[in-house]
């Protein structure tokens, strides 16, 4: 019992804080933070665990969003099934695409993903304009049917839903980090030759990591779609391609709570700063450079050792922090 509590307690604490934030902060902001943190989670896993830096996450976001949108616009009205469709589409697409991409080196990987995001953008904006309605986007907010337990059409019930989804995802990623598979991911990042020598297939490990990460991203996409009730090609715009990477770095690469902290800081800064000045990019950019120069640990990566000392009075995080030293 105690052990199970130990395992769960930091997730519960994190989400308790998030619940408090819901009371203190406006609802749209809280919704956006949670969806963004799910979006970033995939990128964080790829970058921190497997060592792949991807500038093309919007492509997978769009896959999820458009799969949901197609279902809700053309076929059905139930948002839950729409979200399931998004996950399914994300899974299929990342399984196909991943089989080709994970063979590439990490710098090429970043750029090929960027290329995919651009292709996806023009695909949705121009080539498939007859079914995606181009820049006008698909609107289905009013046609979504209300669902019995949690009505996803209402923002406050939607919040509870994504809150639970995010919590489940965090537990899942925490489980992955503790499992042998998580250790294999770290090993393929640090020394793939040795892992091969032990008898694991690097390709399979990376492929699976790619599928897990980008299915998560697609889930975030379908959550965006249901939340706004509207999808347009802007979601995969190449100029926003680096957002998840920025947030990952901001929060702390490879840490479990980095994505939440990062998206909180990023969305908050964007909302606060853009209220006063138009050039919030200047601050984000300088912050990013500063984090990189100061040891690339990010906000949560720097806070975590202090928190551990205060709460546990011991340092159990050599395991997590191994990855913080170098990004490959």
């Amino acid at each position, binding site marked *: 019992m105690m052990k199970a509590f130990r395992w769960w307690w930091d997730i519960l604490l994190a989400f308790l804080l998030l619940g408090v934030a819901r009371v203190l902060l406006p609802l749209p902001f809280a919704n956006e933070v949670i969806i963004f943190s799910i979006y970033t989670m995939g990128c964080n896993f790829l970058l921190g665990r497997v060592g792949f830096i991807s500038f093309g996450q919007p492509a997978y976001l769009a896959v999820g969003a458009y799969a949901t949108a197609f279902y809700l616009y053309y076929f059905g009205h139930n948002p839950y099934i729409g979200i399931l469709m998004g996950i399914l589409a994300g899974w299929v697409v990342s399984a196909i695409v991943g089989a080709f991409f994970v063979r590439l080196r990490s710098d090429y990987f970043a750029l090929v993903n960027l290329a995919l995001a651009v292709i996806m953008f023009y695909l949705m904006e121009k080539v498939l304009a007859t079914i995606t309605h181009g820049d006008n986007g698909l609107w289905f907010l009013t046609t979504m049917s209300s669902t019995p337990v949690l009505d996803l059409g209402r923002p406050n019930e939607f919040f509870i839903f994504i809150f639970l989804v995010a919590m489940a995802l965090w537990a899942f990623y925490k489980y992955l980090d503790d499992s042998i598979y998580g250790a294999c991911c770290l090993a393929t990042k640090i020394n793939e030759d040795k892992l091969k020598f032990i008898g694991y297939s690097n390709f399979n490990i990376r492929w699976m990591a790619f599928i897990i990460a980008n299915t998560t991203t697609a889930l975030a996409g379908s959550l965006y779609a249901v939340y706004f009730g509207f999808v347009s090609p802007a979601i995969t715009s190449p100029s926003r391609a680096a957002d998840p990477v920025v947030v990952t770095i901001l929060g702390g690469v490879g840490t479990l709570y980095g994505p939440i902290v990062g998206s909180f800081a990023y969305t908050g800064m964007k909302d606060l700063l853009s209220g006063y000045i138009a050039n919030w990019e200047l601050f984000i950019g300088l912050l990013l450079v500063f984090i990189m*120069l100061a040891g690339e640990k990010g906000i949560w990566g720097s806070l975590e050792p202090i928190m551990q000392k205060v709460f546990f009075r011991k340092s159990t995080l050599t395991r997590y922090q191994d990855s913080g030293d170098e990004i490959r």
Partner: protein
Amino acid sequence: MMDTQLLISGVIFGLSIGSIYFLMAIGLSLCFGLMRIISLDQLLYYSVGAYITYTIHFATGNTWLGVLGGMAAAGLVSFGVERFVYLRIYERDIAFTMIASFGILFAGVGAIKYVWGLVPRPVPVPIEAQVNILGTGIPVYRLIVIGISLLVYVGIWLFLNRSITGKAIRAGIEDVEHVEGLGVNVYKLFTVTFIIAGILSGLAGGLHAPLIMVDPQMGLEVLAFVFMVVIIGGLGSIKGTLISAFIVGQVISLGSLLYAPLAQMAPFAIMLLILLIKPTGLYGSKLLKR
């Protein structure tokens, strides 16, 4: 069938776009070859070059002077960035420098918005004249852009093959540690290369400014295309960069003549194809394995 006039103007358009991409990609390629960094901030020097061109044109009415000023400003900014940021992180992993350089680019876009505002600015074409080639009117300015980029190619080639610094840079692309072992201060080489790259990006910005509107996001807009040029050509190869720049330029301009929506997408499809068949790009060397 496509008529000849359209085809010729399409080819010239493609060549001029390709020239601009080449000027920017050459810096990226050199930086990657020598320092093993992916310097996304070259796109910032491109925007700086374009904005300085606009400002000087606004003040003096002379676009060519503006281009020169843009080159100088881009060189200065890149020198500052190299001193303050890159000198500390050359040793780090490539993904690390990529993220740091993205931070610089992002901050630079913010700074540009702060100084020049969000509104796109027009820069008039310095030479309005047209020449007649096979019955098609071709703007002289585009021909000049192509000429300048070819001159730059020759100049870079001479620099790398005839001057002692250039030879040291070429040797450094093969193996930095050996060059260091010969007693060359490689960090000086890095600085020189970085400033050359910055100046060329500034030149690209200045030359591109009259062809498009100058706006704060312009760097991010060409980011994907420039990277594609570098990747198709093979990181670290100048000849490959020139060839792939012209290929990409032609694909964009001729593609848009055939079927408009394809124009933006086709180059990326080609890049995916080339990478999947030959992961080092057309002229990338095997030496560049990590």
